[in-house]
């Protein structure tokens, strides 16, 4: 009879706290006064996120596994959980006014944000394929519902439907891949799969299915079709959460599965060739397609969606470069995803800040004149866009620099050149909104700030500070990313 110690119970906290918070929120909701802002729910959500956040601090340390090896408590998972929980906490806390105006200020909105965060953290900590599957599903099912939460708005519900259909399709690929990997090895624990002599062709087939499924989840070309529609249609607060959280969690599981179970140290090294080939193609395709399609967009949310496809390509480039050797490339990818989650959350928070009565402020032309009317919002948005474009002194620059350097060192010269060229291309569409904000007069009446916006202002300030801080003093976080990747072995 296995016994469970305190350490194992503590390991549940990072995803248990948000889940508990979600239950409390749902129980509290009926007892609140109708037609009043549901601030208590947001505060309960925030409190549960802070508990989860604090628990990461205790658990930080050398790698251990809990629950018969199902959960890994290591720096890798905790590092990305830190970003995920921060994103979740900022979304819950900062979008209350947006949610009230959009008519989604209900228990379900906060509860779904919390369950989605719980699934993401589970995904980042999962050490066997069953928990990877459960994490993906807890996250995805919550996010499908969130994307369509403004259910009377046609665009929102259409986005949810498209996201759901492709997401469920991808889930089936993940499950079939897991089944084949289990068939080849008889194991679902990632570290045991690595040390198992297996039927290589079955394993390679399973891995291919798994990579396709994950490719859908993180929005890598050619499996990115849902991304622009889902990002454009979903309410801005949800889009920011999806862009930052879902991507970070998806990459956490993606990296962990590839490095731990199918990395160069595994007993079937041939399979690492399979995923390297698949991923470099996906990386090149995402960088090209994402950046080219973003050039033509007139809608800010849709442009950011295509840019997220492009950024998936850059992160994948890091993973590809990490193949074969321990460290640099995977660490660069990990740092990139970590930084990306902040710089992509920011613009969506600004959109949420400027939106009124559930109509998202999302056309690029509408931004004209924002620099004079709302200097702080315009400044923050400019900072986020510069970071996405990869200009110093922001985290986008440092992240891209490390990814490109590790790719170059790894011998992926053409892919690095493609990355640099597409980055230069991307500067055009990131600078266009900035030019409009500062050099044109307003075409329409711009929304004025109201006192209830202070939480959004606060969160934007925090996110902007993170983007700058990570860009100016990245070394500590880079070391943490490297320690995270090394803790996988």
């Amino acid at each position, binding site marked *: 009879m296995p016994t469970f110690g305190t350490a194992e119970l503590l390991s549940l906290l990072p995803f248990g706290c948000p889940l508990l918070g979600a239950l409390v929120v749902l129980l509290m909701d009926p007892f609140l006064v109708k037609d009043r802002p549901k601030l208590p729910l947001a505060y309960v959500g925030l409190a549960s996120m802070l508990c989860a956040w604090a628990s990461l601090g205790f658990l930080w340390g050398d790698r251990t596994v809990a629950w018969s090896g199902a959960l890994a408590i290591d720096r890798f998972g905790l590092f990305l959980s830190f970003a995920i929980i921060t994103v979740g906490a900022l979304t819950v806390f900062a979008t209350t006014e947006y949610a009230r105006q959009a008519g989604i200020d209900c228990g379900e909105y906060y509860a779904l944000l919390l369950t989605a965060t719980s699934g993401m953290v589970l995904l980042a900590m999962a050490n066997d394929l069953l928990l990877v599957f459960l994490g993906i599903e807890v996250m995805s099912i919550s996010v499908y519902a969130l994307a369509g939460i403004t259910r009377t708005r046609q665009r929102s519900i259409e986005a949810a*439907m498209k996201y759901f259909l492709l997401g469920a399709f991808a889930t089936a690929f993940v499950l079939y891949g897991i089944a084949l990997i289990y068939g080849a090895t008889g194991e679902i624990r990632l570290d045991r799969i690595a040390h198992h002599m297996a039927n290589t062709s079955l394993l390679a087939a399973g891995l291919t299915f798994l990579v396709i499924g994950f490719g859908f989840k993180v929005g890598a070309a050619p499996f990115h079709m849902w991304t622009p529609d889902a990002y454009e249609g979903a309410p801005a607060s949800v889009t920011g959460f999806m862009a930052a959280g879902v991507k970070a969690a998806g990459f956490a599981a993606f990296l962990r599965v590839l490095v731990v179970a199918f990395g160069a140290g595994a007993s079937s090294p041939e399979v690492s060739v399979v995923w390297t080939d698949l991923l470099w193609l996906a990386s090149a395709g995402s960088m090209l397609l994402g950046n080219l399609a973003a050039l033509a967009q007139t809608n800010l949310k849709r442009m950011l969606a295509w840019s997220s496809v492009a950024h998936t390509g850059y992160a994948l480039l890091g993973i590809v470069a990490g193949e074969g050797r321990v460290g640099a490339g995977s660490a660069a990818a990990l740092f990139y995803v970590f930084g990306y989650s902040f710089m992509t959350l920011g613009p969506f928070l600004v959109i949420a800040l400027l939106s009124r009565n559930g109509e998202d402020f999302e056309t690029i032309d509408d931004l004209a004149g924002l620099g004079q009317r709302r200097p702080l919002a315009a400044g923050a948005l400019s900072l986020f866009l510069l970071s996405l474009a990869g200009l110093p002194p922001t985290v986008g620059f440092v992240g891209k620099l490390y990814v490109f350097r590790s790719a170059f060192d790894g011998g992926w010269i053409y892919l690095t050149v493609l990355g640099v060229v597409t980055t230069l291309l991307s500067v055009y569409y990131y600078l266009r909104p900035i030019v409009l904000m500062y050099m044109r007069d307003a075409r329409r009446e711009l929304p004025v700030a109201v006192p209830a916006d202070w939480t959004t202002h606060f969160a934007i300030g925090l996110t902007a500070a993170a983007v700058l801080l990570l860009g100016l003093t990245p070394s500590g976080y880079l070391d943490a990313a490297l320690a995270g990747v090394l803790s996988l072995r």
Partner: protein
Amino acid sequence: MFTLSNCIVLSALLFAIGAYGVVARRNILVMLMSVELMLNAGNLALIAFSRYHASIPSSAANGLTGHVFVLMTMVVAAAEVAVGLAILIALFRNRQTVDPGELDLLKG
């Protein structure tokens, strides 16, 4: 009859039929059913492999992993289809259509 290879071939066929259904059919309800078929193909493969691994005396695997996995998958699939149908109902109320080709507000 129920050999490993037969079961795996059957599950691969189910998966292919499901994938074809999602790609080719123009009715969201049928697409949902096709996704369920794909998930059940995965379940069948898991069960078949589970039995296979249990039948090898030298294997460390106890053969229960696959069974437990399938139970979890069934719960998850039920939750997933519940959300999917809810979204579909909300969509139908707005648009009176179940044809994914008519979902064209978002494009570009």
